[in-house]
């Protein structure tokens, strides 16, 4: 069994509108988790600093675990639901060139964005069994996609990227 090659240059065929694969989605999600946690931590530190400045008391909101956890859950909900309802993509998804759309390709509705956000943790249950559908199903949907009636597609124009890539290549010297 030979190893399939990994594409180094941007693919020749345009991928806009095609179902996004698991690796891109995973990396985008990891980037979103990092970004949302980073923003939350900075906001928490900023808030602690502001309270210290105003009251003069040393307050560390991060040490109040229940409060911080509740704040984190609310923040994560806002982070994902707001961005998905706004344009169908989060910061991580925008970087990786993917977006969430309805099953038929229409823009995602705010209702779908909220359902997708609430049901996202379900896909993590049983060691991430809910994500297996991204690899196995023909429309590559996870559990939360199925419940929200959404799919994730590439919004990145690979053809334009390939043109940019080709433009930056050194012209071949004639033999």
């Amino acid at each position, binding site marked *: *069994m030979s190893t*399939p*090659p*990994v*594409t*180094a*240059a*941007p*693919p020749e065929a345009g*991928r*806009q*509108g*095609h*179902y*996004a*694969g*698991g*690796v*891109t989605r995973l*990396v985008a999600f990891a980037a979103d988790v990092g970004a949302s946690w980073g923003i939350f931590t900075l906001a928490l530190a900023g808030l602690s600093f502001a309270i210290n400045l105003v009251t003069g008391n040393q307050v560390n909101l991060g040490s109040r675990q229940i409060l911080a956890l509740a704040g984190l859950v609310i923040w994560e909900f806002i982070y994902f639901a707001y961005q998905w309802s706004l344009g169908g993509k989060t910061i991580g998804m925008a*970087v*990786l*060139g993917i977006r969430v*759309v*309805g*099953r*038929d*390709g*229409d823009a995602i509705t705010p209702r779908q964005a909220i359902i997708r956000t609430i049901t996202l943790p379900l896909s993590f249950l049983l060691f991430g069994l809910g994500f297996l559908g991204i*690899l*196995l199903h*023909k*429309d590559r949907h996870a559990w939360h996609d199925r419940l929200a009636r959404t*799919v994730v*597609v*590439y*919004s*990145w*124009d*690979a053809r*334009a*990227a390939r043109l*940019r*890539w080709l433009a*930056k290549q050194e012209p071949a010297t004639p033999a």
Partner: protein
Amino acid sequence: MEQLVESIAERVVNLVLDAIDINAIVSQVDMDALLAKVDVDAIVSKVDVDSLIDRVDVQKIIDRVDVDEIVNRVDVDQIVARVDVEAIIERVDVQAIIERVDVEQVIQRVDIDKLVEQTELGTIIAHSTSGVASEVLDVVRAQGVGLDDFVARWVNRVLRRSSEDWPPGPAKLVNPPVPVPALPLEATA
């Protein structure tokens, strides 16, 4: 008495006419010389052409003309082949045409949002001003797509299945392949 004279004159004229060979006389007349003496212009100038035209029922003439048949008999290809398109184009003042076009109105009719969404024009413009960032983005995305394909191929191999007949994406986003019309026989021969 008068009636008698008239009857005699009539009789005489008939006898004379019977005796004359008109054809012989006409054959001896030089028609060319005769016509040369006729001032055709003078005759035409005396004709009231307007009055003549007024008496012609043009509509009736037009009604009797089969325009379709005339058009069918015209070889348009031959006429077009004789037209010097280059000469016509050279005579066209393109600048004047452009000046008459309301560009503002044309632009207002363009759905810029849709254009940017479909062509990623905005991204391209943004990338043109940030070369390094665009290069990094392209590399990350290309690697992601490559790894997606790599994983998908392995999964298909392990499960011993083919995903070739799977839809690549939602129907509204993925353009269906345009069927190529069959070539005419003379073109394929």
